[in-house]
């Protein structure tokens, strides 16, 4: 492919998927700045792959796979400061666009809080299925699992979320 055409193609992909990848990252790592870095890094990796003139069948799934791998790498790094600590001490924003209503913001924060309590395996499945809107088939491809395993995982994640939500309600 012509180098210029490839660059244009890359730009197009960025415009199309930048927000989605960022959203995925922000719900996975609960850190807006980190999510931004991860998003940028995911596109850098995508370009490195594209510039070698390699074929990509499903760009969307491919981008999610890169992002997922980066997040796994991120998890492996030792967490030095907890999210709460940062929010309290530095006025840290976990990623919500301040231009939206307070109601929305509450919903978002509630969802985020619930997700944070889930084990990462379930969190990953829920974010991909209900926030990113990926199909079970795509998820199976990205996570290298069978569609059955993914379906079961999503179901269990919802069950877990339900339990957590009920527990939270009781506490409140």
């Amino acid at each position, binding site marked *: 492919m012509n180098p210029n055409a490839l660059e244009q193609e890359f730009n197009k992909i960025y415009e199309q998927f930048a927000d989605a990848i960022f959203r995925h990252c922000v719900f996975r790592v609960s850190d807006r700045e980190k999510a931004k870095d991860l998003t940028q890094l995911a596109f850098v990796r995508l370009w490195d792959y594209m510039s070698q003139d390699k074929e990509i069948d499903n760009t969307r799934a491919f981008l999610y796979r890169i992002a997922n791998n980066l997040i796994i790498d991120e998890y492996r790094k030792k967490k030095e400061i907890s999210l709460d600590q940062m929010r309290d001490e530095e006025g840290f924003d976990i990623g919500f666009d301040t231009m939206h209503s307070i109601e929305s913001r509450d*919903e978002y924060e509630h969802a985020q809080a619930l997700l944070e309590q889930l084990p990462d395996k379930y969190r990953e499945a829920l974010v991909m299925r209900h*926030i990113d809107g990926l199909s079970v088939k795509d998820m199976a491809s990205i996570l290298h699992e069978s569609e059955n395993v993914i379906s079961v995982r999503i179901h269990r994640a919802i069950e877990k979320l339900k339990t957590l939500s009920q527990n939270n309600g009781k506490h409140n």
Partner: protein
Amino acid sequence: MENIIKQLKNGSKHARLSASEKAEIKSALFRHVKANPVSIPRAIPSPFNIKSHFIFARTSRESGLSRTLLASRNKKSISVLVLGGLLMGSSVSFAAENTVPGDTLFPIKIHVNETVRGAVAVTQKEKAEWEIRLVERRLEEFEKLAVTQNVPVEVRQIAEQNLEHYAERVKNRIAKFENDEDSEDALGTASSFSDVLNDHERSISELEDKDGDDDSIGVISTSTHRITTLADDTSRVDNKSIRDAVEKIREVRGDAERKHKDLKKKYHREDVKENGAASGDEDFNDTVPRYIPQDKSINHSSTITKTSDDEVGIEVREKTRNDENRIEEVRSVPVPPYSPTHDIPTEIESIKSAINSGNDDDESPNEEELD
């Protein structure tokens, strides 16, 4: 439950990059794209692999003029190197062919050209032929130096030593043939060796005779007195060097011919011995030897000799081999002259019986009885 999913979805809708963040990431990505342009993965092309040049040429076509130039220059430089190397090698070797001792390229002639050409000779005979050719080459150099003016004495000496050395090699080769009892090759080599030396001696002797006259080339071509004297001087020097050369070649030739003669004698003698004609070197050509083995211990051979003008006899040589010594007995069986009245089968029978009776008695045959 539905609410929670709905909450998640609603909440996520607003989680997005601001325009400035998006632009920031985009510019960072743009820098990355510019820093890492499109490249087709390829192995480092080996300059020794023809295939790699094709790959190189393909990528260069895709990524612009500079690479094309680089690729073509690379290919060109390799071919220029290869061609240059070949040309250099061949021209140096060609130039070295006509050198004489003292020239810069002479060692190349001796060590490279001759070694390579000598390597083609596989059999002993071919090697011998090549060594004779080498002697011829040394002779040519020696002669060339002898007729060239102002050659330092040391150089002439080197040429002389070379000649001796290579002649020695041929002699060793002949000796080797002798040891291997390869009479044919030993004689052949010795013969062609002395022929070559003879030829060269003849040609240089002619040169010596020519230079001996006052009409040397240098004198004819000069008109002034000074140059004439110089030419006289140089021709004198040449005469001396040519004389020396002739002497040297004559010496080597004499040596070679002596060897040739010795070999001839030696192998003739052996031939004679094998054929049982021990009467001497001179008459072995005049006799027609015939070898009739009858017994392991007794050998018979008969020779037809002409004893007188009208009488043909058969000389029977009888060799009795004992463990320690050989006894040879010679008997003459006269045969009556051929005439049509004679019954030939009867004659042969009588001769045979005469021979047999001699064997049975183990004594000298009685000539009367045979008659």
